[in-house]
């Protein structure tokens, strides 16, 4: 019975030890909102990144930026966000102890496919950059064949000018004859 109690006690201790954090929490934590999103090409969306200072001291000069990677099969590549009009990096001067900072990354969805977005914070006093979990983004393709009635102008104007051109040429030739 004693042996059984000892064995159960050891299992209990091991379970407690497994539940305990392996190390102290990171100086800063980063999260992204929304965690997943479905939208159409051309939509404007915005990601919110929350940077939490987990220490009792203010953290200064944090650089926070968003990254987007295309994970569509066959198109796997990181994206240059310049085309997507997203904010580039945000420099956070200071986050007070135990406080949070919220940054916005608006973007216009340029291409269809499956993507993952994540926000990274870089603290020069820490060797490791801290990234948020990945937010999954699905963008549906949208086809527009005649937006703003472009067809009549795009095809009509050169044709109309061509007809005026023929008229001018014809009248000139007639005059010469």
């Amino acid at each position: 019975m004693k042996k059984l109690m000892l064995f159960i006690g050891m299992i209990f201790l091991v379970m407690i030890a497994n539940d305990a954090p392996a190390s102290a929490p990171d100086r800063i934590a980063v999260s992204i909102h929304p965690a997943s999103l479905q939208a159409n090409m051309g939509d404007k969306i915005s990601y919110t990144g929350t940077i939490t200072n987990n220490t009792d001291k203010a953290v200064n000069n944090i650089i926070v930026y968003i990254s987007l990677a295309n994970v569509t099969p066959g198109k796997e590549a990181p994206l240059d966000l310049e085309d997507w009009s997203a904010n580039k990096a945000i420099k956070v001067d200071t986050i007070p102890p135990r406080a949070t900072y919220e940054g916005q990354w608006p973007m216009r969805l340029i291409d269809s496919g499956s993507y993952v977005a994540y926000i990274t914070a870089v603290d020069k006093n820490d060797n490791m950059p801290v990234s948020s979990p990945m937010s999954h983004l699905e963008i549906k393709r949208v086809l527009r064949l005649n937006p703003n009635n472009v067809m009549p102008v795009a095809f009509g104007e050169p044709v109309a000018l061509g007809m005026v051109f023929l008229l001018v040429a014809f009248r000139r030739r007639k005059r010469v004859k």
Partner: protein
Amino acid sequence: MKTAYVLQKEIRESILTPKGFLWYILTSVILSVLSYLFLTNSELSLLDQGQMLYMIMNFITALGILVGLVFGADAFAGEIERGTMEALLLSPVTKAEVAMGKLGATLANLGILLLISLPYLLIVGKGGQNLLIGMVYLAFLATFLTIIFSAFSMGLSSRIKSVKNSLMASFFIFLLAGSPIFLSAAQRGTWFGRILDLINPFADAINTFDSVVVDGQGFVHQAGRVAIICGYLLLSLWFLERSISKQEM
């Protein structure tokens, strides 16, 4: 009145001819392709509407300048090479009136280009903000720039007396003026890039279009750049006046 006579002659000879008219059809075809791509291509169609309008405005301005350069380079050197300059100077018109008439023809050509581009601007900018104010800025700045480059090219044409050489010199100046376009955004942000942007009338114009159409900023933000363009306008007219007054047959 005599200027109007030269203007009429130039329009008859350079614009209302089948060859001259062909340019307008080509312009229209290029604008059709551009606007169709902007609005239907899966990636380009998602550009900000202001950005599309800004790109079309840049294209129209560059085209107006280019045609102005060609007209300007041909103005005096072309007449000399064709052997018609003597006849022109024997008629009761002064050199200044000839120059003003030819400059007027360049502006008439720009007016036609702007008229051709109007439907495209309306289609591309439909429903977007800053369309009308953008078109007002385009009309003024494209006119100013066309006068600047055309007057400069005309002055060179009068001094060099060779269409080929004055055209080459004018294109070189135009490429120099367009050089900030070849710099990256980071390079343009440096002190050198900023100065190059500021002293360059073409860069001033496209930065003004950007500021007005894309960023929606008011005239206060544009005043400095517009003043620089006006300065170049006066300088180019002065250069033209000096060049034709020194012209010898």
